């Protein structure tokens, strides 16, 4: 019997002005990133409400990553600075509740950094794959 490799489900919230273009850049440079990464485009990384992250986990995500502009480069001047504070607190809280902190991540990826996008996603996928399925923030109703 062939052992099917465990593929984690990853949700990536990508800022429209940088990381989303970075994903494009990765594509045009023929740099691959795992198919398990589902990209959701947001107007700014600071659009990501903590509830989005929790709901992603509820709906079966094993890892959630937010990718935004480098601090100082926000299209809206300061959005990502607020993202940074919010996510710092949220991730710390998830950790405090005993939920693996490696499942959540924030990365700053500019439109020019296709390679970084690809590398980040590959690394994040590998990290989450090593953790296995999300069991601590799951909603059994959503499991098949």
């Amino acid at each position: 019997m062939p052992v099917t490799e465990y593929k984690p489900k990853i949700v990536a919230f990508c800022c429209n002005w940088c990381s989303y273009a970075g994903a494009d850049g990765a594509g045009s440079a023929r740099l691959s990133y795992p198919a398990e990464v589902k990209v959701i485009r947001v107007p700014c990384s600071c659009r990501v409400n903590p509830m989005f992250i929790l709901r992603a986990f509820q709906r079966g995500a094993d890892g959630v990553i937010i990718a935004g502009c480098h601090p100082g480069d926000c299209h809206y001047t300061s959005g990502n600075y607020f993202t940074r504070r919010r996510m710092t607190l949220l991730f710390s809280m998830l950790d405090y509740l005993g939920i693996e902190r490696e499942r959540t991540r924030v990365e700053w990826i500019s439109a020019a950094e296709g390679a970084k996008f690809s590398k980040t996603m590959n690394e994040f996928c590998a990290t989450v794959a090593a953790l296995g399925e999300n069991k601590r923030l799951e909603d059994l109703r959503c499991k098949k």
Partner: protein
Amino acid sequence: MQEMMEKRALELLADGTVNRVLGWSVGEFPYDMTPAVFRSAEDLKDRFVYNDFCGANLSKYLIKESKGEGKILVFLKPCDTYSFNQLIAEHRIKRENVYVIGIECYGKADVEKLKAMGLSGITGIQMKNGEYVVETVYGNKTVKASDATAERCLSCKSKKHVVFDELIGEDGDVVEDCNRFDMVEKLEAMTPDERFAFWRGELSRCIRCNACRNVCPACSCEQCVFDNPNSGVAQKAAVNSFEENMFHIIRAFHVAGRCTDCGECSRVCPQHIPLHLLNRKFIKDMNEFYGEYQAGADPDARPPLGTYTKGDREPNEGGNK
């Protein structure tokens, strides 16, 4: 204390400074006082009470009451003044319609602690000289008042009134070594597995009654996201562990930077979930990451989540062990 408060309230009602008084009214037992609005001298004389069991934070009622006709007198304990100030900062209370009398407080009593000592059938509690003589149908028992002090008061952060129009009793100081983060630190020192087990045990008891939210002075939204049918999270189910996690994480997050750590959430939880430990985690993190901040202390201060610096720490760095 009660006499002084009642006397002053009667004076202010009589001279027209205020037309209502927000205080506590007598209960069935010595420990179950209900917050109440008194509109006449007769009513005050009839029902007004103040004792060690008057723990409720009255500031939340002012959101509604301060919008009423005329000025209202309110009695605030030191910790309540922080909530009041925070609500002022958020423009939820009309300051000019409230007359605040700060009342000194050396810690409130928690009847649950008396009951946990096995005291039942309580018919009276005589309070004097740091002792409670608890009269029950099963006999009387004398307990040290300090043994019945509410958990939240044992780590009181401040005996100072940050806002008042006048004081009854002494104003105190901010308590520097209040140890209020001890339990948070203890949890942080645990392994993730232990922390997970701890919170699962606690949060799984949640019955989603919304008492924590409704009593919280920081939860002053006109419509809560959890009541909004269009939010996608307006589920009332208490199942499957996810719903409770979601509710409590998001609630704590929504009040982060605005929570004054008054402890009402844990006081009212019918399931005795230590909800304040979630809020305190945020407070502790914000203190460590962004500098000391006490919500409500200064209504003009920028809340940590409403500002930033260019060199803030990165989310991936982690805080716990």
